[in-house]
């Protein structure tokens, strides 16, 4: 019952593959990835890892990996220096749902988000974006400060 109650009003019922959580923990604890991109595999009825980016990759490399007309989830480890010259790192969860993608994809990702998000324990900020301008690096900097 506890499980049922945590679903939103309408949920896709999609599952989450075990390796999603493991890969996220690698990003969070071991810092081996700069970002992880997840996608929904409809045949397997679960969310899977699509791609990971090495620690040396930049934010632009990450953006280039998001498809223009399909939805994805992603986590990005954002390193920055505060005004007090202090090195900090915050983890962003991004729900990428470009307005030009098919409604079916938007529906699928939106109805699965809450279930998937529960697995990503330790995310600091969340962004839902429907166009590239909402993912500008300034938006991240703004939120993190």
């Amino acid at each position: 019952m506890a499980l049922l109650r945590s679903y939103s009003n309408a949920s896709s019922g999609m599952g989450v593959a075990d390796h999603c959580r493991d890969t996220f923990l690698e990003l969070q604890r071991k810092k081996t990835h700069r970002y992880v991109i997840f996608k929904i595999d409809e045949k397997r009825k679960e969310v899977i890892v699509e791609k990971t980016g090495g620690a040396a990759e930049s934010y632009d490399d990450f953006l280039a990996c998001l498809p223009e007309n399909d939805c994805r989830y992603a986590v990005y480890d954002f390193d920055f220096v505060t005004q007090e010259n202090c090195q900090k790192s915050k983890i962003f969860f991004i729900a990428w749902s470009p307005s030009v993608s098919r409604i079916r994809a938007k529906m699928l990702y939106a109805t699965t988000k809450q279930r998937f998000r529960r697995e990503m324990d330790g995310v600091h900020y969340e962004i839902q974006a429907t166009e590239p301008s909402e993912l500008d690096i300034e938006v991240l900097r703004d939120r993190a400060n």
Partner: protein
Amino acid sequence: MYGGDEVSAIVIDLGSHTCKAGYAGEDAPKAVFPSVVGSIEQQEVVNGTKFEKESESMSDLKGGLKGLDSEKAKTKRKLYVGSQALGFRRDHMEVISPFQDGVVADWDIVDNIWAHAFKDRLLIDPMEHPMLLAEPTSNAPQQRERMAEILFENYKVPALFVAKNAVLTSFASGRATSLVVDSGGGSTTVAPVQDGYVLQKGVATSPIGGEFLTECMMKSLESKGIIFKPRYSFKRKEARPGDFQTIDLDFPNTTERYKLYSQRLIASDIKECVCRAPDTPYDESAYANIPMTPYELPDGQIIEIGADRFKIPDILFNPSLVQTIPGMENFIDSSPVRGLPQMVIESINKCDVDIRRELFSSILLSGGTASMQQLKERLEKDLMEESPQAARVKVLASGNATERRFSVWIGGSILASLGSFQQMWFSKGEYEEHGASYIQRKCP
């Protein structure tokens, strides 16, 4: 768990103005018909001649209504559902709605509307198809239990799911968090949605919807001397090629409500054809000299519509304008009504500070009235002027008119067709084991 992969589900969105029904997985509802029905009170002692007349007019009807007739035999009124049955004028036929103040008050009518959708329009056996129903955002728990009861008991549906209008719209646009502005026929509802839940404390509603605007349009044109002749009240004959003659017909037994219903159909079409939200608040003097747009009424009369094209839609933004429309002056006195931008801002301000920013930047339009030309641009402009500086206002609407008008239905259609969704249904077995209240758990 209900394993219903192989048969397609049926999706129904019963709005205050129109009922949308169709098969899950399709991109538009197959059946779209009025949510109001015609009703004739049946007298206990049937007068011989009158009875004959009635049965005569019944046989005129296409066979479609037969299924309903047998079911309705037990009650004392006869209901006529669907555009066709309602479009046919009958003596003493009233036009009634199942809704009162946005919630279902008469379940018998809803029952008949469903029956019409299943049997006459979609031609399906409800026992074989799971049903996904969209419900008004502020529906009470008792309402959904009642809905479940009727569908499981009377229709023996194998499985059911109920999703809120605002949630379906939000998801269909790819957002789990958004502010949904749903302007439909009977009312306008502004609802904040966070992670797929409606934040009830922030829900704002106003009675100004499409029907109200239609009423204003009609009153305003009537005050200028235009007479709306309902379609049933005349015949047009082509005397010579290209030359039409209108012959008035007299039906003294037509009810006032039916006449009004028929006139509103015309006014509503005028509204949909010519209206456009003005870019700035409506100003009587600035619009005094705008060019007139011609419109041909069903009886051949050509009328010209000027400032009303802009004035009527502006009522959504500035309800006090109704006071300048003859016959509508008393509307505001009864209850204070806010304009659309104020409703949006009030609704957002009732939500947690943390999500306000997000809500301002994901305002979604849905419903027939929100599909009005230039409405999106105007709302965005007004909100930018009135919202806090830091907020980044963004009003989103699908560019496709069908998608905008049916966003709720489309959301339901996709949800119900997802392979992974099949485990989410509230099944007949679960209903029998746990009762109707279990729906609150299955469809929170």
